[in-house]
């Protein structure tokens, strides 16, 4: 596969500590397009080995608006279903830049390891020095060791190592969309996580046309009024939780967007530093970056102050536990009690629809109504939209905001970018397969 691709699938066998590479066949892209279309295919191919499959969308890391995400596909140790978790922030695109479109992890390591993936090389590395450390310490230790603060990580913390049903795979220092207990799955394989860094380039079949069409679509996207808004509080307002804005506003430091995403879906809260600070904080841990709107809302609903909600989110990120589950099931109302409850949290997070996609992502349209009505129609639309965003690698929350990102123009860009004829019929078939 020459274009929009690194042409490589990595297969890592933790049992034997062997790393193999396969070429990504063009015919597979013609049949499954990409993203979770292919991670699902690879999951089925290696199903006997209970694989974790990491992937990127066909458009990930390009100039198509919001082409920011990657995916983890695996069987949830909690629900028993094959689920797809978006990889967000800058971590999603780094997977592709580091030289692989897809990574299959099979088996179980005898001792803790992490996978260092860089410029088309994958090293199974001893994790003895970071096993037992929290997500922040692990990420910091790896960045220091490698010598690069731009290293992107997917790590578990103590929750994953201890086998919590709500253990998350966190991205860099932050909580993730993982509501499936993938952190527990990583821990069961003695896999501390991944570190990605690459300076790879992605070839495009018709680069000038691709960029020109991307910019045309971006221009249409920018005509939306909602792009004047920023951050998680405004998303919650659009979902009917208007009072969150005033509650959180005093500790908002900044908003940040995922790779090439026109809306800042993440908000940094300063809880141990002046939120008005305009220079880099000299404190090691001034705050927390929040992408999980329902977790934030959950902590508000149990009566925490905004500062304590920030502290709770930070503690969850360090421990590598789903903050939404903590807010919903801990039954505690002080920050210290919440932290102490991490190992004993029980409860099942409801996964909507067919159970393949994370309710981290709001389950209805945001800012635009997309002409939908009725719960069933909205749920069906949401599932299809999630599937589409993760086939092409589009930031899944932004996909719920922006009608200008259509299946038609994603297919068009994919065809321009790959020189393959990718049709709506193919996309429909891929989605049908994913939704089972």
């Amino acid at each position, binding site marked *: 596969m020459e274009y929009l691709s690194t042409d490589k699938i990595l297969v890592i066998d933790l049992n034997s500590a062997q790393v193999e590479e396969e070429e990504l066949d063009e015919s597979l892209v013609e049949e499954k397009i990409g993203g979770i279309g292919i991670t699902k295919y690879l999951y089925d191919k290696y199903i006997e080995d209970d694989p974790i499959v990491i992937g990127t969308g066909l458009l990930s890391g390009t100039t198509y608006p919001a082409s920011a995400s990657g995916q983890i596909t695996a069987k949830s140790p909690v629900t028993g279903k094959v689920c797809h978790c978006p990889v967000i922030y800058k971590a999603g695109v780094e997977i592709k830049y580091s030289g692989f479109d897809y990574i299959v992890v099979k088996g179980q390591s005898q001792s803790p390891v992490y996978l260092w993936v*860089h*410029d088309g090389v994958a*090293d199974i590395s001893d994790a003895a020095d970071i096993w037992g450390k929290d997500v922040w310490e692990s990420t910091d230790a790896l960045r220091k060791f*490698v*010598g*690069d*603060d*731009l290293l992107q990580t997917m790590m578990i913390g103590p929750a994953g190592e201890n086998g919590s049903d709500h253990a998350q795979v966190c991205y860099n220092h932050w909580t993730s969309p993982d509501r499936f207990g993938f952190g527990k799955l990583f821990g069961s394989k003695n896999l501390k996580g991944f570190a990605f860094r*690459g*300076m790879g380039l992605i070839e495009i079949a018709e680069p000038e046309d691709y960029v020109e069409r991307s910019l045309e679509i971006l221009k249409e996207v920018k005509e939306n009024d909602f792009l004047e808004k920023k951050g998680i509080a405004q998303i919650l307002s659009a979902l009917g939780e208007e009072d969150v804005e005033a509650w959180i506003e005093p500790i908002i430091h900044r908003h940040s967007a995922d790779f090439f995403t026109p809306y800042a879906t993440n908000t940094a809260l300063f809880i141990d530093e002046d939120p008005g600070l305009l220079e880099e904080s000299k404190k090691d841990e001034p705050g927390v970056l929040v992408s999980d709107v329902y977790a934030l809302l959950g902590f508000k609903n149990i009566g925490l102050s905004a500062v304590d909600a920030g502290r709770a989110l930070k503690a969850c990120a360090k421990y590598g536990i789903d903050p939404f589950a903590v807010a919903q099931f801990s039954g505690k109302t002080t920050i210290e009690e919440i932290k102490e409850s991490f190992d004993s949290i029980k409860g099942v997070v409801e996964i909507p629809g067919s159970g393949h996609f994370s309710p981290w992502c709001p389950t209805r349209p945001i800012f635009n109504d997309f002409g939908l009505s009725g719960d069933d129609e909205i749920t069906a639309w949401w599932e299809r939209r999630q599937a589409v965003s993760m086939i092409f690698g589009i930031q899944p929350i932004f996909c719920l905001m922006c009608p200008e990102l259509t299946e038609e123009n994603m297919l068009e860009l994919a065809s321009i970018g790959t020189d393959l004829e990718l049709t709506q019929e193919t996309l429909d078939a891929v989605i049908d397969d994913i939704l089972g």
Partner: protein
Amino acid sequence: MKGPKIGLYAGSGTSHSWLWFVDLFEKAGFYDLVFLDEFSVQNNEIKELDVLVVSGGDTFAVAKSLGKEGGQNIKAFVEQGGTYIGSCAGAYLPMNSSKKPLDWFNFVDVKITNLSKTLPLAEIKTCKFCTSYGCDFVFHPVREAVALKTTSFYGKETPIEFTAPLYGGPGMKAGDPSWVVAVYNGFTPKTSFLTSRKIAEKTLINNAAVIRVPYNNGSFYLLGPHLEHPKFKEANQFIIDAVISETCMVQNRGTSKYRLESTPLKEKITGKQAKELLLSIRRELSNSRIVAGSLEFLPIQWLIGQKVYEPQKVRVYLESMFKRLKALEKNKVLILKPGLNERITRAAKQLTIELRRIKREIDENLESLKTAIVIFDLLHVLSISFFELYFTNMFNNSVQFKESLGNI
């Protein structure tokens, strides 16, 4: 014409500009390249070359590294029909000088015009403005692209005008005006003035930018600007034309040196062994360039000898090797000298270690100069070894390709 065998000096004292020559010669299809350090010049491994290139860097450091023996070998090489191409520091090197250790290289009667007893007023404060030279100063009136024009001695009826960047190279006056093949003809919108325009004009304009000094059977080419810079195609062509015409001239004259056709001791590695070697090179080049990339965000530079080195220079070496990996990975068989495998992997691993060390030193505000010196030495060792591997195989592929065409 038989393709020229070209040696590039990449040993101590050189900057990254020899890598530009590598790009240039590869694009021109000259794969018979030899990469030399100071020891190989001292061991007279240059005697079988057609062309010897000494690029930019720190002239004093290059002279000191090559030593008296290296100087004598270069002199003998040119006398016997070799072509010396010196760019920037490599141009200063063979000029007459009374200063040690430059006096081991007193080969050509050429003087520089950018020498002054009193330092002209600098327009821009930069450590790249001047270098002390005894009681005098070698100063650099401009940087970046300047305009050049060939003279009637270049051998073409109408003068050719082109541009090339000047990064500390000399303006020159030749002992014999017929040696001057191109002069500084003016400045360009991209020229950056480090002194007043008036001083810059006086120092450079109509003075020699490129000189060819005939020397017994061979010749010295002295290039003030970097004609080998990859963004200056016409200047590049000037060098290629010079290499071709000098090689043809020597071959036609019959003074071409007798080249031993004996095959140097080489081994072949195949299959898993070849794959593992290339993977280990890729791994360490990647590790190194990742940390080198992060160094570029840091406000630091190192003065090594008389030359200032920025972190950006590290990645120039690394990228130059990394971009050639794919082509090497297509080879199912690798040909290399015994021991080269180990030399490359050892240097590559050590480079990663040292780069990670220097990152920690800088992060913790510790002294980093010693590590920087080690890093630039390692970069030379690694890149010489890597390019030896690369061009041995590229040359071999091109020979096989030509043979296959012959069979058809």
